[in-house]
């Protein structure tokens, strides 16, 4: 086997020199450049390079500095999970995360789940529980269905207890691992109640249902083990000599799989897929071969492979991934297959931004990010041409350029295997996202035509709904709080438990803001949290989705907040801007909304204040419903 990470770029000659440079900076106690560090970790590492990146990750964990998203991860199991710790650090780096792993002492599962003690002795961002069935198993005599049902219930009870303990003791969600499939004993395994194979399948379905209901998060160890092959996943020698639940050699891969989930939790998954055209979506060159000459569809095996890849791309889109095209082509020529080729599954309407011209790819990818209102880090790029990939990697290291190879039959495996588009159980807002971005690009075009901005806003027929935090809205609220980076004044992250607490606390105002217009239902696009401190209120959190910028949302929302303040007899409202590398777009937010500068703090954050009596309401161009 060549590499665990075929979707990552191969090691270049100067890899070791680049690492040495970063190691030297880290040795001096400084945080090295974020993009450069992420990029050296994100390679097809061999065993020794892997060790080196693990060491770098450990070192960086001790250094203060910006860039990486820090995650304190608890590790809980009834087998030896120690071999995951260092690889999780390395895997995190490749995805922009600094993961510090806190391993519970051996076999503390029951103690953590059912006693009052917290074996982690600290708060965490997530607890990963990897149990094997000896932690779950009740008596299951063969063919005894009732006993099997009972054993599955018992497993559910343990999973619930772990999730509850994670919430109450460490203030974070639990991630529960599915059970790997076992080596087949007979053809009748899953038809035989009481068999191990059948028990594992049922437990995994139970874990999936619980995850869909939001009771816990799930690491699908079973899916990864199947991908690798069960005979390789389970290493009986290591198991019998050291109680290692899966092959130590595979830990870097398992860690990467977990890191993609952590990236999804912290909003670092990719949100848009940028596609090259010639030899990426069809075989041949449309400009040379013409519509009849390109290979797509039933005329060849290669053509079938391109169709299969397009089908996969559409399934990503269905899950909320935004699609864009970046091609060196004449625009009209590049669009022709989308419009006229009968075997193309992808149509123009699926593509939110279509960037076909003769500029270089990096320039065009930058333009795509801008049009979508997304950071470069939210983009993944697929191109069959290794030279183009190499150039984009060099010029835009934050864009995830996937090593898809040149054979379309493997494009799907590589993109799926990369885990770049990993996501938590979906909600309906996620599904609406791709078409909403499409609508957004259309809106940008209409705006150019309309000219008059006020008229343009009115023409959108926007409806804003402000409602307090509630049970139904909480998953999306937590998601927004944890993944909004750009339009986010304080970038304070709160987990599900935090938000639940605020929901019932009279000292807090928690608002979720929905927006719809004639093009799209944007869903929940904003969150505001205010701390009431007597006659003064303090805006703790103000964030908005970048899907709907420059719509007058913040002006209308501030009007509503001030109205609330007036009726509560509040004298002034304070707000704070905490600068990060991503939120410069809101540095003048409070001034634009009529707040006065109140002072600058040592850490660079800036305070603003607004005397309620001085507030001048902003003009409003939408219909507002306040359900508070």
């Amino acid at each position, binding site marked *: 086997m060549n590499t665990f990470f075929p979707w990552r770029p191969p090691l270049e000659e100067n890899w070791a020199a680049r690492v040495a440079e970063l190691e030297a900076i880290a040795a001096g106690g400084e945080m090295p450049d974020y993009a450069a560090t992420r990029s050296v970790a994100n390679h097809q590492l061999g*065993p*020794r390079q892997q*060790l080196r990146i693990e060491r770098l990750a450990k070192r960086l964990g001790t250094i203060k500095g910006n860039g990486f998203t820090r995650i304190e991860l608890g590790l809980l199991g009834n087998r030896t999970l*120690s*071999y995951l710790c260092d690889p999780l650090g390395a895997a995190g780096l490749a995805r922009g995360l600094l993961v510090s792993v806190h391993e519970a002492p051996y076999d503390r599962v029951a103690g953590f789940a059912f006693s009052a003690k917290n074996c982690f002795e600290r708060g965490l961002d997530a607890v990963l529980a990897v149990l094997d069935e000896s932690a779950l198993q009740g008596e299951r005599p063969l063919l005894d269905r009732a006993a099997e049902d009972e054993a599955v219930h018992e497993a559910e009870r343990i999973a619930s207890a772990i999730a509850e303990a994670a919430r109450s003791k460490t203030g974070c969600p639990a991630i529960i691992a599915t059970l790997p499939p076992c080596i087949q004993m007979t053809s009748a395994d899953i038809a035989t109640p009481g068999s191990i194979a059948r028990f594992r399948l049922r437990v995994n379905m139970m874990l999936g249902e619980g995850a869909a209901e939001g009771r816990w998060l799930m690491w699908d160890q079973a899916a990864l083990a199947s991908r690798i092959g069960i005979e390789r996943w389970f290493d009986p*020698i290591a198991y019998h000599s050291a109680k290692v639940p899966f092959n130590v*050699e595979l830990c870097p891969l398992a860690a990467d799989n977990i890191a993609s989930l952590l990236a999804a939790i912290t909003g670092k998954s990719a949100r848009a897929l940028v596609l090259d055209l010639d030899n990426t979506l069809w075989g041949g060159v449309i400009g040379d071969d013409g519509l009849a000459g390109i290979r797509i569809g039933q005329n060849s095996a290669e053509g079938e492979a391109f169709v299969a890849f397009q089908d996969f791309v559409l399934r990503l889109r269905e899950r909320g991934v935004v699609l864009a095209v970046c091609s060196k082509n004449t625009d009209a020529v590049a669009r022709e297959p989308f419009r006229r080729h009968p075997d193309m599954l992808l149509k123009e309407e699926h593509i939110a931004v279509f960037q076909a011209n003769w500029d270089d790819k990096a320039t065009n990818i930058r333009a795509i990010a801008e049009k979508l209102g997304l950071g470069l880090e939210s983009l993944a790029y697929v191109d069959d041409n290794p030279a183009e990939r190499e150039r984009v990697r060099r010029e835009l290291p934050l864009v995830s350029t996937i090593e898809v190879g040149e054979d379309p039959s493997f494009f799907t495996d590589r993109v799926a295997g990369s885990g770049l588009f990993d996501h938590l159980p979906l909600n309906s807002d996620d599904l609406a996202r791709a078409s909403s971005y499409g609508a957004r690009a259309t809106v940008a075009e209409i705006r150019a035509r309309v000219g008059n901005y006020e008229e343009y806003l009115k023409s959108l027929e926007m409806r804003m709904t402000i409602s307090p935090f509630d049970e139904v809205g909480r998953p999306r609220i937590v998601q927004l709080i944890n993944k909004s980076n750009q339009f986010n004044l304080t970038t304070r992250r709160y987990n599900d438990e935090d938000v639940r607490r605020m929901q019932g606390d009279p000292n807090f105002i928690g608002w979720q803001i929905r927006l719809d217009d004639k093009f799209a239902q944007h869903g929940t696009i904003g969150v505001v949290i205010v701390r009431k401190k007597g006659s003064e209120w303090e805006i703790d959190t103000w964030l908005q989705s970048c899907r709907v910028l420059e719509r007058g949302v913040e002006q209308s929302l501030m009007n509503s907040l001030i109205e609330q303040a007036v009726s509560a007899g509040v004298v002034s409202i304070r707000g704070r801007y905490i600068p990060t590398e991503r939120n410069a777009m809101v540095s003048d937010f409070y001034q634009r909304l009529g707040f006065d500068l109140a002072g600058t703090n040592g850490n660079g954050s800036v305070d603003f204040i607004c005397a309620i009596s001085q507030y001048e309401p902003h003009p409003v161009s939408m219909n507002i419903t306040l359900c508070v």
Partner: protein
Amino acid sequence: MSDHQLYLSQIAEVIRELFDEYDGPITLETTARDVPQWDSLSNVRLMVLIEQELAVRFSTAEVQGFKNLGSLIDAVVKRKQN
């Protein structure tokens, strides 16, 4: 260079990468006791790395029975001859 010396030099590189704080000698007589970072946990990792580096696979019994690097390399040489 004899087979033993060749394998020892490959293994030494792995050991220096894994146990980066150790800068003492690495010989056929070296055992886990000589290297402070080499505990029972990291031993499993080391065995896997050596297996990857030298493209061999040790048996359950062998993994338990190595006295020092010399006896580990004896096992490697035996595998490579068969």
